[in-house]
């Protein structure tokens, strides 16, 4: 009797399954890459200023030609609180006339400040509360594969385009942001 006569069938099945994974991953990779490239071209700063009629205290005309580092957070969000010490280091190292750090929160200011005191949270970004409209606008730039997760970190370059746009506490991404900001600082020094 011929042995392993069903082996080719099983191998074909396995390779079809692997092929389907490759197809699925390449389709989603293409969507991610295309979406990210399209988003990177958008002047988010300008679009937000127009959408809010330049009336929002957090994001307005005064930020034009500046690098804007935005963080969306809340005191009830554990990953947000976990990344705050690292974010504070960013402020300490890179804050300048050229680089602005803004933190947006949907909740009521008094309640959030109370909780900050209770939990001993010190956040060195410029804090803005009750920012539902602005936060919704920022989340409208998320891609189909991205969820409405919090925290949201965005770095807008001087042209208002996002160099970084990511959700969740991601230490690897934060490292990249640091490198990016340090490069910007070096470039500024060189120009000076």
């Amino acid at each position, binding site marked *: 009797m011929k042995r392993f006569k069903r082996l080719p069938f099983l191998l074909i099945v396995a390779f079809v399954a*692997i092929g389907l994974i490759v197809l*699925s991953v390449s389709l989603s990779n293409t969507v991610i890459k295309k979406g990210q490239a399209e988003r990177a071209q958008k002047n988010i700063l300008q679009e937000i200023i127009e959408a809010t009629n330049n009336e929002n205290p957090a994001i307005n005309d005064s930020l034009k030609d500046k690098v804007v580092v935005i963080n969306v957070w809340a005191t009830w969000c554990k990953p947000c609180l976990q990344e705050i010490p690292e974010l504070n280091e960013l402020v300490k190292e890179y804050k300048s006339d050229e680089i602005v750090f803004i933190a947006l929160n949907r909740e009521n200011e008094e309640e959030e400040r109370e909780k900050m005191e209770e939990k001993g949270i010190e956040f060195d970004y410029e804090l803005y509360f009750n920012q539902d409209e602005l936060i919704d606008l920022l989340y409208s730039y998320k891609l189909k594969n991205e969820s409405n997760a919090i925290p949201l970190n965005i770095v807008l370059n001087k042209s208002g385009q996002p160099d970084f746009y990511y959700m969740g506490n991601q230490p690897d991404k934060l490292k990249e942001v640091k490198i990016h900001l340090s490069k910007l600082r070096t470039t500024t020094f060189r120009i000076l």
Partner: protein
Amino acid sequence: MNIKRIISIELLKLPVMSNYIILGILLLLDFAFSFLFFYQFSSSASESDSFMDVGRQILNTQASFGGMLICIFIILNVGGEYKNGTLSKNLIDGFSREDFYVGKFFVMLFCVLFALIVGVVSLTIGSLALGKWNDFLHLMDVTFVINFFIQLFYNGIFALFLIFLFKKVAISLVLYFVWGVFENILTGIQYVYFKTQEIDSTFRLDEYLPRSSIEVVLNSTEYIHPSSIVITGLYILLFLLIPYFSFLKSDIKS
């Protein structure tokens, strides 16, 4: 024996009470998830974005529960053949070991297709009832259907792997659940320890673990590196071929 005959023999063995119960639970769960999901969105004026997020979570939940039930189905089905001695009878009656293994593979495929169809149909009915058809179409793209199928299939071949290697229903079921918990603990340790120590924070342990690797590949919102696909592909080959070769050579007594 030709494949058509193997399939017809396996189909004759399917109408058993335990199989009806498992497939019934699968059907009920899928419709319950779908109903809860659409009920939530019909009772609140939520935005499309939230619809997509929650929808994706519901679909993932359906895939994981479906995968778990498929696993139980396969383990009980094959384990029953060992326990009741019907495996020996089949072999005496002219079934080759290869035919038996391939037959069980088709049973697994049948379950996967059943779970896939029920999942998609339950969500289709829900979205039509709510009038969220366009959002649903946006959510249910080709990638999602493939991912849903692969996730179920992966669980199915993992079940085949366990039951053909260990032969006992209880051991296989315990291993299935303990394995999942064990991988979660390992991933947790890696996250807590390695991330805080900053020892190569780009390294992801779950990418290399048998049950988690498929989730990394299919559910990631980031760009997937080809190495992740290679690892998952290797696991698929192992899950299909190790039990095949082991079953051809091993003792059939449980």
